[in-house]
């Protein structure tokens, strides 16, 4: 059996998650050894035709063309993994979903008539069946390595579903909500980053999206006590994963 063929696709995104793959540095050669990197234009111009065993998809769907392109990719891939906040929740650009797209386009572009775009930015799973989602803005490179290693061993990758709080405690961070009265989304956000922001005394921005059974209502009450007003709370929940935290600011 030949090596598994890996493809990496880009949709509406900043390329940060693709860079996380390249950021694997120490493990990159081992990855290239373990799988055939068949289609990854951020890394190499050499493109090998599909079908592909694993497709990593970065970015959200924001145009009609992209909505078609992702369907083709699905047909050509055995396994599809959506990587990052754009691919799994629409990303920051999903803020358009809560505004008037025409107004945005006319404010941003000199020639709005050249722009052809959907009114919303949506996740990959809104258009096709996705086999796995890796969260984060950007994704954690350890998750990418785990994904490849697990896929090759034929086991399920271990991706945490619990809160960032657990990672804070495993790392020995002091809770910024309790000891610093900071607004922090850690208690409702999925682990995966290693509690990066609280480790430098910043509240969690929620870039990994909601954890299992996120109790955003209860946290919001506490964060108000910590000085976050309605506007601030809406902005907190409406950053990287607005569509996933949606129920919070719509209420």
């Amino acid at each position, binding site marked *: 059996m030949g090596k598994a063929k890996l493809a990496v696709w880009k949709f509406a995104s900043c390329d940060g998650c693709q860079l996380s793959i390249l950021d694997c540095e120490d493990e990159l050669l081992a990855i290239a050894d373990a799988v055939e990197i068949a289609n990854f234009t951020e890394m190499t111009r050499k493109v090998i035709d599909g079908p592909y065993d694993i497709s990593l998809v970065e970015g959200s769907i924001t145009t009609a063309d992209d909505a078609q392109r992702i369907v083709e990719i699905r047909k050509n891939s055995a396994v599809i993994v959506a990587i990052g906040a754009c691919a799994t929740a629409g990303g920051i650009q999903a803020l358009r979903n809560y505004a008037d797209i025409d107004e945005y386009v006319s404010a941003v572009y000199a020639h709005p008539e050249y722009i052809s775009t959907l009114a919303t930015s949506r996740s990959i799973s809104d258009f096709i069946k996705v086999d796995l989602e890796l969260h984060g803005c950007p994704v954690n490179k350890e998750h990418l390595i785990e994904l490849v290693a697990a896929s090759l061993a034929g086991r399920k990758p271990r991706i945490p*579903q619990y809160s960032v709080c*657990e990672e804070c*405690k495993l790392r020995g961070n002091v809770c910024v909500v309790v000891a610093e009265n900071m607004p922090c989304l850690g208690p409702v956000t999925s682990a995966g980053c290693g509690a990066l922001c609280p480790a430098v005394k910043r509240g969690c921005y929620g870039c990994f999206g909601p954890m299992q059974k996120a109790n955003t209502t209860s946290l919001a009450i506490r964060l108000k006590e910590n000085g976050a007003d309605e506007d601030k709370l809406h902005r907190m929940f409406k950053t990287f994963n607005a569509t996933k935290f949606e129920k919070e600011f719509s209420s």
Partner: protein
Amino acid sequence: MENILAGVATTQGIDELIKLLLGDGYQVIGPSAENNVIQKKEITSVEDLPKGYTDSQAPGHYALKRDSSSPELFSWAVGPASFKDNLFPSKSTLFEGKITKSDVSISQKEPFSQKVCFFGIRPCEVAAMAVLGRVMAGGPYQDPQAKSVRENSLVIAVECGYPAENCFCTSFDTGPMADEGCDIIITEITEGEHRFLLRSGSDTGHHILNRLNYKSALPEDVSARDRVIAKSISQIGKSIDAENTPSMLARNLSSHVWSDIARRCLSCGNCTMVCPTCFCASFEHSNGLENDFSVTRRWDSCFDTAHSYIHGGSVRTSTASKYRQWMTHKLSTWVDQFNEIGCVGCGRCITWCPVGIDITEEVAKIAESESK
């Protein structure tokens, strides 16, 4: 044990004790003010101790402040980090290895062999280490690190003169006075001249005190110490009925209070992480990209849905059932399992709960819901 030896020391005398321990080859782990909380760290002199610091704690709140004119070294209650990870590290590799065409090689962790002194630890911490030690190394299958720490570490406890608002050690006789499991017991006295009463609690402690030139304790030192304890006891406002709670909870698994708690509970797992006795772990088998593999252990939480995952799905998916699992284990089924209550009343789960859920109040509500 030999007779209890009791001496009186100044701050300088405490420094001499720390230096003696270092000279004996101990790694001394003691309290220090860092990152705006009382933390534990490796200390080398009395200068490392959190002199003049006091904390204020409330459900979901912790604040540290300093009075630079205060000579007191131990005027605070427990901080966020317990000594749990000294017995039971938050993350550890149990073994790792490599698979080649003809062989499987396994390298195991070096056995734990540090000579550790836990210095300035609160009585509730001593009790918690004992409870956790019985779980990890009390039965036929003993965790090597927990066993080593349990058998070989030196414990120098400080009786509690400053309980926090969330403390309830008096419910379980785990404080504010120190008793079992201590080699030396220190009480800081501010009445009259600032001084420390040191008493031996073991032969090892006795020998250490014998080597220091402390003044012998006088009856007034001992009675001043008794007043420190009496004052602390009078300041502890929270409680759990240790005798009746285990059976009361077992009768009330369908109480409406569980779902009331679930409305507030974030199921973030902070309570289990800061609890000095919560011992759940996840054992993770992994392979890497180069035929390498490892088995690691990390702290797990009953608030993680994956914690109760078995074939077909998770047993506990609702927050109400997760919280109930946690509380009933701590205060009820732990008794069935280990013949004691799994809580020492340190109050960490109350302070470090981001939404300030108070285990003592919730127990009271469940008891009240039964009587209605």
